[in-house]
């Protein structure tokens, strides 16, 4: 009847019809930045495209995914899994050209039970922002522990074979995550992740900076190459550990996506823009805003060496003052020494009396050196009677009632250094108001000593504890322990403000949101100076220097605008023990004072805004001053002298200065830098 050619045309027409039919089942939102589509039958996300940058992130409808949920039995012992693709949405509705709503009700578990739980998702496009809002109405007797939404079933790179990796921030750094393996990024460290390719990326954000619960950014490899039924693919989803209790409803944190052209800097700019909405700049005393340096000293350890009694502190203070050091972080001043007897902030009789310590602090501060007392409130030392008699009540526990712990740290003697006899600690529950009262009371002891600040070491983590199931902690468990960080910090700040708003808060690598309370962050040198890039002049980031002629570390400190923290003998010595390091550090700070507008009061731009070439290895950074004049710091990391050329677009006349030769000389941008040296090229 039909010729082969006609048959082919009919088949082609039928296939088109079938395709059109399939597309007809998609509900699509689009604007100038995004196209996103959902299957009307399943609610699966079937298509996700960024227009700028051009990137088909999800383009395979067959691998589309909707959501995943776990509804646990009240005792946490039994999981009831709900697979989104096995549910039929009751609604997939376009509310406006840029917003749609999906809803699933009466969810059927893998065990066949129907649960009176409703999941509602709202997807919105606003300019270049794609956001996913989710709410859970849990009318069941179960605890909705986790919800995965949105889910991208087949995350693709922008072009076939293009590299793909992720970034997240932690400890004042920008970490790089290998996506060739399964990878999880946790919101306890970073409120965002960047899905990065060679020249473009996708910024993904947990759109709530208050740490309401843990959200994981999860990259998982599934399937196998060559399998049509189960092809190899990279899935990406955000997992909300929201713990929605029986007969309650919860609005989950929005998940926000933005595309960007460029490298991680452009991704960080997305975060920076959002952060500017909610971030409250903390008060920083004038002395800390100026160019200055710190040092660090330890008094004793759990091994009771009592290396620096209180009465000898003033002698050290004179050395610091004589050498222009502005602040000293004092470790191991409190009872038991560094990492023992936490959270007690009593003084240690082995070091002297309370009065001796109080007076020594006052004397050293009268010389112009601010005393910053190191402390930890996260833990309770298991060896103390205080723990046995009281503090155990406030510890975090697992669903089975067992205690969460932290392993302690090793000091001084071969026995401890081999890991024997460490002071192990319980993890205190910051969600427990009763424990927060204990912590506040201990903090009052620090204030009473009259120091001008404190440094909370290990503020950046709670060991392996995420949630506590301890009963009688003033909330219905489980409680997200990181959620207690800010309420406690706020209470401590309020207590300090009663003494002095200038009492400075420092922390060990506090998460970015905690820097609202702890503007001084001790991180050491990082690969990407995250805090400096976000907000240079409101971030005081300390980097320790311990080498005996440590020009390498000091040059990087200059380049990345860290504050020098002198740590001779790993902070057990005198600052005069390493005169070469001290002398070069002074030169660095002198240079910063002399060219303060360029090197201190300017915005740190990392490697953006200038080009540098050289005939050897080097690193560089750019600073933008408030007047628009720029500076480029070039550090020779080679073992020999290098010839470098600095190119600043549309530059005016240039001058160069170095720590060793601080008088500015005019330059074309072509400079010679000796080994172990740095140079600063400044626009006039």
């Amino acid at each position, binding site marked *: 009847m039909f010729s082969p050619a006609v048959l082919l045309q009919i088949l082609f027409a039928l296939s088109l019809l079938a395709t059109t039919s399939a597309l007809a089942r998609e509900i699509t939102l689009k604007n100038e930045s995004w196209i996103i589509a959902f299957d009307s039958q399943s609610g699966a996300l079937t298509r996700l495209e960024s227009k700028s940058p051009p990137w088909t992130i999800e383009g395979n409808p067959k691998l589309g995914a909707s959501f995943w949920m776990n509804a646990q039995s009240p005792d946490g012992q039994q999981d009831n899994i709900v697979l989104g693709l096995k549910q039929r949405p009751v609604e997939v509705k376009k509310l406006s050209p840029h917003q749609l709503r999906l809803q699933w009700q009466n969810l059927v578990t893998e065990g066949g039970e129907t649960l009176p739980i409703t999941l509602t998702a709202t997807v919105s496009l606003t300019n270049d922002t794609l956001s996913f809002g989710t709410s859970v109405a849990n009318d069941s007797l179960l605890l909705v522990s986790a919800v995965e939404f949105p889910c991208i079933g087949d995350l693709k790179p922008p072009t076939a074979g293009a590299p793909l990796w992720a970034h997240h921030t932690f400890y004042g750094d920008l970490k790089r995550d290998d996506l060739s393996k399964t990878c999880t990024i946790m919101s306890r460290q970073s409120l965002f992740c960047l899905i990065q390719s060679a020249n473009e990326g996708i910024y993904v954000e947990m759109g709530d900076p208050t740490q309401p619960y843990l959200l994981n950014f999860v990259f998982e490899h599934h399937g196998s190459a060559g399998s049509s039924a189960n092809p190899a693919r990279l899935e990406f989803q955000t997992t909300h550990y929201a713990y929605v209790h029986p007969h309650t409803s919860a609005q989950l944190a929005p998940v926000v996506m933005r595309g960007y052209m460029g490298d991680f800097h452009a991704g960080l700019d997305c975060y920076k823009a959002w952060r500017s909405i909610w971030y409250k700049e903390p008060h920083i005393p004038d002395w800390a805003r100026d160019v200055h340096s710190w040092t660090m000293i330890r008094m004793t350890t759990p091994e009771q060496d009592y*290396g620096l009694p209180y009465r000898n502190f003033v002698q050290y203070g004179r050395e610091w003052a004589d050498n222009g050091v502005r602040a000293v972080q004092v470790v191991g001043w409190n009872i038991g020494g560094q990492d023992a007897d936490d959270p007690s902030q009593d003084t240690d009789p082995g070091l002297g009396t309370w009065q001796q310590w109080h007076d020594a602090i006052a004397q050293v501060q009268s010389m112009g050196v601010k005393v910053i007392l190191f402390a930890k409130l996260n833990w309770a030392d298991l060896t103390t009677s205080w723990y046995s008699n009281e503090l155990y009540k406030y510890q975090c526990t697992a669903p089975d009632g067992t205690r969460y712990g932290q392993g302690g740290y090793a000091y001084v003697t071969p026995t401890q250094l081999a890991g024997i006899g460490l002071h192990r600690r319980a993890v205190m529950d910051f969600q427990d108001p009763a424990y927060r009262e204990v912590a506040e009371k201990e903090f009052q002891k620090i204030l009473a000593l009259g120091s001008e600040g404190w440094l909370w070491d290990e503020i950046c983590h709670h060991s392996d504890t995420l949630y506590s199931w301890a009963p009688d902690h003033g909330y219905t468990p489980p409680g997200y322990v990181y959620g207690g960080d800010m309420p406690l910090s706020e209470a401590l700040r309020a207590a300090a403000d009663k003494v002095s708003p200038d009492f400075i808060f420092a922390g060990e690598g506090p998460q970015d949101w905690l820097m609202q309370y702890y503007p001084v962050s001790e991180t050491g040198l990082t690969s990407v100076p995250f805090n400096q890039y976000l907000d240079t002049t409101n971030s005081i980031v300390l980097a320790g220097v311990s080498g005996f002629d440590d020009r390498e570390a000091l040059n990087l400190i200059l380049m990345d605008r860290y504050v020098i923290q002198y740590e001779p003998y790993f902070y057990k010595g005198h600052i005069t023990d390493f005169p070469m390091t001290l002398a070069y550090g002074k030169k660095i700070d002198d240079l910063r004072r002399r060219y303060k507008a360029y090197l201190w009061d300017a915005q740190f731009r990392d490697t953006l805004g200038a080009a540098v070439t050289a005939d050897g290895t080097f690193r560089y950074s750019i600073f933008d001053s408030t007047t628009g004049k720029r500076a480029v710091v070039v550090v020779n990391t080679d073992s020999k002298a290098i010839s470098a050329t600095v190119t600043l677009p549309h530059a005016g006349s240039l001058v160069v200065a170095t720590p060793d030769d601080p008088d500015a000389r005019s330059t074309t941008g072509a400079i010679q830098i000796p080994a172990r040296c740095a140079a600063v090229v400044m626009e006039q």
Partner: protein
Amino acid sequence: MRYSRLHAEGPNRFNAIFVLAIMAVSCPLYGSDITLQDNALSISFDSDSGALTRFENKNPHWVIERRPEFGVSFRLYAPLPTRRYNPVFGQKQHVADIKKVSDNEICMRWDNLVSENGGVLPMSFAADVTLTNGVLTFGSTLKNDSDLTVETVEYPYFGDLNPPSGDSSLTAYTMTKGALKPDELYPHFHNEKGYWGVTWPTKMLEPQNSHFCAIQAPDMRLNIAAEADYRVQYIFEQHPGVISGVTALVPPEDEISGIPVHLEFRVCHFVFAGPHSTTTLAPVILKRYQGDWHAGQDSPASN
């Protein structure tokens, strides 16, 4: 100024000067050397302190322990009931008896050990060093008549371990997960312990499923093995530190800013010797091989 003695207790120079003053008035710091040697090795001990003051490999010539002023005899820790920090520094002890009992054997004994915070302790430590056909054996016995437990004894103790030359290299090897794991000692020395817990860059190497630590120079290797039924660690400590925390380069000269540069190496025995006990420590056998780390792998002393 004998800076090494100052730094025996740590960087607190004021305490150190006090200690040095006490020592200066109470005793001569050094006596004469007592030496064992054969065709391969030469090793010397100070007759007053028992410190290991010099150690040489003869062919090729390698002065392994070079400067007598950094010589150390031993160190032990005996925590007190009220204070855990109670070391006994060999540098502060006088040897009670030291004898070259034969051409290849020296015996030493220290009695009534002076501890840092617990006074004089009724303990004696005896060492027996033999040199036979290029193989050194360090035997030792601790007699603890005190009420304290001696947790660790560090012996033998090389206070100034040197590479064959300033432009040479040193690497330690220990067995980890079935393979020899290298740890560079010179020209780079990376601290491998938590810096909060130590004063100097430190490595505490603990071989798995074997007993030896190899110290490899370009053409020569020392194998040190203690086959013990207790825990043993091989400890390296770079004084006073490195040039830069970024590069981890060791200062190539003998001093930096007037402070001596020296690498300590000691074998740490975790004996936990109880009160009123006598403990014979596992002998430490030191053997040298010419060549790279493959050399001597079939030797009993190498594993």
